[in-house]
């Protein structure tokens, strides 16, 4: 967001967490830089800058992407959801956020926004994921603190209320 003169920059409009936003961006700017620097949404984390760690995961038009690899201008007209945009229907923490907070899914927290978005996206697609689908959904999100098992548990806990019948994952 820093290089390039004003004249080289292009206007970008997209929907961020339900609000129309716009910014003037360098043609080569990454989505993560627009989110963090231009729009001040620092919940999206940069862990590697090469699409390996998933800390920068955001949801674009319902699909998780690594915002460190995603060209900002490709977000034109799209719906982007970041960690700041998650919440329960009545406000407060979303079910996935709540499950991460109440269980042991969070340690240092640097991978957490990306993890929660990947998990949210998974539960949108598969409200009742089996263990294999959970592992698969998170394979692009590295965590160095937890050893993942408590993250899996949090996702199972978040999935459970959607199925009051109580069937096991």
């Amino acid at each position: 967001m820093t290089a390039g003169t004003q004249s080289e920059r292009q206007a970008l409009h997209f929907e961020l967490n339900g609000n129309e936003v716009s910014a003037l961006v360098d043609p080569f700017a990454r989505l993560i830089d627009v989110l963090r620097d231009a729009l001040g949404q620092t919940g999206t984390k940069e862990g590697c800058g090469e699409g390996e760690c998933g800390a920068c995961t955001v949801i674009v038009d319902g699909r998780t992407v690594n915002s460190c690899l995603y060209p900002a201008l490709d977000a034109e007209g799209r719906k982007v959801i970041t960690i700041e945009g998650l919440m329960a229907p009545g406000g407060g923490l979303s079910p996935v956020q709540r499950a991460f907070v109440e269980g042991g899914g969070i340690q240092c927290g640097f991978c957490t926004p990306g993890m929660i978005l990947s998990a949210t996206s998974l539960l949108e697609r598969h409200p009742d994921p089996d263990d294999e689908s959970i592992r698969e959904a998170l394979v692009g999100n590295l965590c160095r603190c937890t050893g993942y098992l408590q993250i899996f548990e949090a996702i199972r806990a978040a999935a459970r209320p959607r199925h009051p019948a109580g069937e096991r994952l």
Partner: protein
Amino acid sequence: MAAYRFIGQPAERPEAQDKATGKALYIHDLSRPGMLYGQIKFSEHAHARIARIDTSKAERLPGVRAVVTAQNTPEIRLGFLRDNLALKRDKVRQFRDEIAAVAAVDLETARAAVALIEVEYEPLPGVFSPDEALAEGAPLVHDLLPDGTPNATNRLGLEFHHRSGDVEAGRKASRFVAEGEYTTPLIQQSCLGTAGCLAEFDGNGDLTIWAKTQIPFLAQRDFTAALKAMGLKGKRARVIVPVLGGGFGTGLDTHCYEFISILLAWKTGRPVKIVYDRQEEFACLSPRQSARTKVAQGCDSKGRLTFRQIDVVMDNGAYTSWGATYPSIMLLPATSLYRVPNVRFDAQLVYTNNTYCQAMRGYGNPEVTWPIESNLDDLAREAGLDARELRLFNCNEPGERTPMGLKITTCGLRECLETASTRIGWDEKRGQGGKVARGVGLASLVHVGGGGKIYRSDGSGIILKADDYGTVHVSYGGVEMGQGLHTVLRQAVAEALGVLPEAVVVNQTDTATCPWDVGTHASRGAFMACNAAILAAGRLRAKLFPLASEVFASEVERNFKQREQRDPKYRRPELDLSALSRPENLELEGGRLFPKDAPDDPCLSIEFGRLLRAIHFRDAGTVFSAEAFFEPKTELPDWQKGYGNMSESYAYGTQAVEVEVDRETGQVKILRVVAVHDVGRVLNPVTLRGQALGALAQGIGYALYEEVKTERGRILNPGFTDYKIPTAGEFDFPVELVFVETNDPAGPFGAKGVGEPGLVPTAPAIGNAIFDAIGVRLKDLPMTPERVLAAILEHRSSCQTEDEQWHSR
């Protein structure tokens, strides 16, 4: 064991909601008005004289505010042996050496400016392994010692030895002896949040630095010394710790980049932030040391251990961090894992032109537990004994004084061994490997569980201050890095003081407001913090009840009067309020003050906040606070002798693993893990599981995948693409955790330190399981498919050779 209200229960992390909503502020997220971005020019040679540095083009780039080199800044020395310079003057000794740095208005300009810095080198021959470095006539990494006197060797001037009993006599008395040589790799701590800092000077010339550190107070000491070296005598350094994106040992030293950002901030008069990107984190931040260890152990005909001999050589790299004191912890497994009468331990650190190393979780312990526990299985086989029985036969017991002088108070090792082996199915599965190439193995550990004294103080201060709303603010100098320190500290304060956990707030770690703490390492965080909290809460209670006895009755009176005013029909009960004036009759629990003889009378109970206001707002009122400094009763060991009781308690544990090995590909698949740890007492089952599972995952990475690869000092895999840490995909096996509660008398509520033990025995447990599965002993970590396959092929060919020899007779 005593029953507690909050201890032993799950509790929400105080910072969890911030982390789950993206509001937690890491160093990456901090910004200050006028802030500049710093970038460093690193060396392009492993060993070279710096002939010329030309920064003129960088200086002329628009947006650049300062370029610093050793030539235009005062010399700042750092490192455990003071052998490192923030900016290198005449010579570079490793690829990542800092030659110059830039501060610019934005990151891209700073990067562009660094690319414009021209350095002319005169390359020197380098040494890239301890063998090369110790060879006769090898080039010296340091021509001069830090004090300026000529240097003669690449050996570090640090000695770690231990002698107890008579190893030669022990060897002679042995019926069976096993020997081997084992290696462990360089690995990267791989914090998801990379390293960084933000330095700012105020109008007085005092420094504030937001640093990703685990040692705010030792860092303050180092930064204050740097200010002095910069000619800013009498100026102060304040260290504030932002939310940490992981620590794992990376924060146990001060780093060149921190001093460089201080220099840039001073030179520009503006705040300067330096944050490493992932490639810099891999290539320019110190990894865990590699080690090569020779081990020999013996036993008599019954299996009683007779001696143990350990010889460790570590590649220190070009400079020295606190990680060079790894052997201080290596001494624990060497002398005190199982009962062994005759022990010899020698550790040597060697300078090379490889990247310099620093500490990582476990601090030398995994490096030595790997050879000891692998070799012990070999010894058991030599002796024809079951590997578990050999360990149980030599098991440590409570009340023991080990050869290193460790006073073992509580010790759950026997239970750990028995539980782990039973639950993995030892009797049914051990030795059944053969056809299916499946096997089980186990390994144990001993680690410091009650602090680890490697500095003149191993203490921790704490301040509790209650406000007028009943909130207890805790100022503690240790660092929350995700392990859950603030969570259990909050529970401990609530438990010890008599308030609700929700009423306890742990403040941000800041040297200006928190009392001194040596650092968050050695699994000491919760042990120290909670012990300090218990002391301070006791003092607060001792202060509270006499003061409360002065105001309690009048507050109850006031209650009655208020009710009478509100409700004319209200009739106050006939009560003798004199009991409220006796301090010894008062109790505080769950945030309410009440008399012990009438704990359930709602009329005779007031809220903590109201009590505090009554104590506060009057003549001769009192601020309601207490402090404590907890210094464990331990000894700073004599490293030349390797002797001293460095911790107040010791954590034992055993991990058992079942694996399947693919003989065609060398792939090792973990089928099941049972981890049993003596934790003293469970403070919080959720955060404890987090520590144990997270450490286990790092242990698995260490065992099977991770290695920083180098070629003549250059790091070849500086990124997660080529450096593999465990991913969610691998964790498709069940992990059974069992916590043995030995209720340690020195521990807060009986608890021991739990941060590191979980990764210590993982590699040898897996290695022993692989042996059980396929009869091949792996001696080098990581046990990658390539290595396993190579070992299988070598084993096959040696078997064939034996066969051929047999047939040709």
